[in-house]
């Protein structure tokens, strides 16, 4: 104990002048941290608490009835399916696009970057409407699809398409700056040492960007499950068939079933929390 103190003491003294120059007084720090915390509490914690409070207001039994009735179950299943389609597609696309953009020079590169950003800058409602305009019965491909009995909008493919569209940027946007910062020296070294293209990718590129991928996938997944606007336009709102969880929440809320609406909403919140926990666990595993 005393030895530690003895060791620590000079350091503290040595640090002190540096601290003064780079940090604020106790009061300022207290106020700033307090502000940040109350902002966080007000905008994130209170609504989160409110969701669970409202959901459980009528008791646990009502809560479980709400999330196990057939329409709710089908909305949960559909939401998970949507995520299961959108996330892998955008994972592959995102990695490929980021790899091309960060490691190579080619014509139309800035166009590709703009296209990846497009879903961020376009309102989700428009993202849904473009699919209605293209695949709708009165749209460009509508009559042909009708003749061949293929349903796109107001059916699952439309919901998948709209969700994939709005979640395109997440993985790519996460990886591009990371890969650009890393440069391509390591890949060049691998190639010089005789590795093939795939070997280079799997043994050099991929390990370097895995945390970026995890983060991108988590964001992509959260958005895929939570997307409302684009899906609302192409869904047709058929209960038990084309309602995702966010749409189901709206329906319940509009039917005066407030507790049930919040119960399903709390599931969405839980899914988000679970993703965060998984992310933390994976990080922890890798570090130890």
């Amino acid at each position, binding site marked *: 104990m005393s030895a530690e103190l003895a060791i620590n003491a000079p350091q503290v003294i040595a640090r002190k002048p540096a601290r003064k120059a780079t940090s604020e007084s106790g009061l300022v720090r207290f106020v700033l941290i307090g502000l940040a915390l109350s902002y966080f509490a007000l905008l994130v914690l209170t609504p989160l608490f409110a969701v669970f409070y409202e959901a459980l207001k009528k008791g646990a039994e009502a809560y479980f009835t709400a999330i196990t009735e057939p329409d709710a179950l*089908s909305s949960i*299943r*559909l939401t998970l*399916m949507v995520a299961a389609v959108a996330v892998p597609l955008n994972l592959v696309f995102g990695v490929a696009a980021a790899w091309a953009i960060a490691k190579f020079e080619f014509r139309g590169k800035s166009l590709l970057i703009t296209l990846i950003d497009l879903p961020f800058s376009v309102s989700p409602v428009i993202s849904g409407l473009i699919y*209605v305009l293209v*695949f*709708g*019965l*009165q*749209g460009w491909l*509508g009559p042909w699809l*009708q003749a*061949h*009995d*293929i*349903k796109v*909008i*107001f*059916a*699952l*493919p439309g919901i998948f398409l709209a969700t994939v569209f709005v979640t395109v940027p997440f993985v790519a946007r996460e990886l591009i700056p990371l890969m650009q910062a890393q440069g391509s020296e390591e890949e060049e070294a691998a190639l010089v040492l005789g590795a093939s293209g795939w070997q280079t990718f799997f043994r050099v590129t991929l390990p370097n960007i895995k945390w970026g991928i995890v983060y991108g996938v988590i964001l992509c997944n959260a958005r895929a499950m939570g997307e409302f606007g684009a899906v609302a336009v192409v869904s*047709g*709102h*058929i*209960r*038990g*068939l084309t309602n995702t969880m966010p749409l189901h929440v709206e*329906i319940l*809320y*509009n*039917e*005066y079933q407030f507790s049930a609406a919040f119960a399903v909403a709390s599931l969405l919140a839980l899914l988000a929390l679970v993703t965060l926990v998984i992310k933390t666990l994976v990080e922890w595993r890798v570090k130890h």
Partner: protein
Amino acid sequence: MKLKHTLLALTLSAVLPVAALAAEVNLLNVSYDPTRELYQDYNAAFAKFWQAKGGEKVTVRQSHGGAARQARAVIDGLEADVVTLALAYDIDEIAEKAKLLPADWQKRLPHNSSPYTSTIVFLVRKGNPKNIRDWDDLAKPGTSVITPNPKTSGGARWNYLAAWGYALKKFGSEDKAREFVAQIYKNVPVLDTGARGSTTTFVERGIGDVFISWENEAFLAIKELGPGKVDIVVPSLSILAEPPITLVDRVVDKRGTRKVAQAYLDFWYTPEAQEIAAKNFYRQIDPKIAAKYAKQFPKVALFKIDDVFGGWQKAQKLHFADGGVFDQIYQPGKK
């Protein structure tokens, strides 16, 4: 092609594990906003009725929203076996734009294909603090009026026409009626896309002094949210609202569901179904049942759209088409 079919079938069967079973049929009923509770009851009753008659197990799926928006979805390819919308014009649109059903669809079932009717009343805050009695009070400056958007909502169009019809009778001229309705819409702070959205705006969010509403929606709001919050006020004159129902011929023929879909619609004209309408606060066309529930509904002088506006086609083109009277009088932000 084959592959796509299989893929689609696979995805669908993943969502609908029961769909593949024989002796089971699914119908899709695309309806307007406030009929959610009505069709929940009706679908359950019809399923029982159909099985008792030796038919297959029927599951009727529902889609709800503002009537014009719902019609738009059917035009864009939402495969409804039956549509049950707020007013005839929206079904006319489906017939005209997508040719999914014949133009004279409304003659196929009795009572203009409207097995239940309703009217337009006011919902006010408990105790009626602004003392709202009739349409005139809605046009007064300082009264905040909630009504949905007539462009997307059927109920909102009935609201608008009810106000117009009242003014026309009172002042006797189209110009005065136009001025009167414009005054009312100056008092509207927000136009929701469907009737249910407006109900939530008025009752849950507490915006507005008076909400122009379907009668059934007003009763339901009181039932669901407790009588302590809002009161119903009945105007001196209102409109007879006839929400029609019909088959979507091209869809039922393609899906092979014509027989059960037709039975689904015919079932409305039975006493049992009329009771369901009454319990959900819709007015009945069956005089016997109507007499039984007469006490439930306030007495209102009602006019018909055909008598005052010459039918939906005319009313829609004059008032609600792009650049029509509604567009001319409703200019948000301008006072």
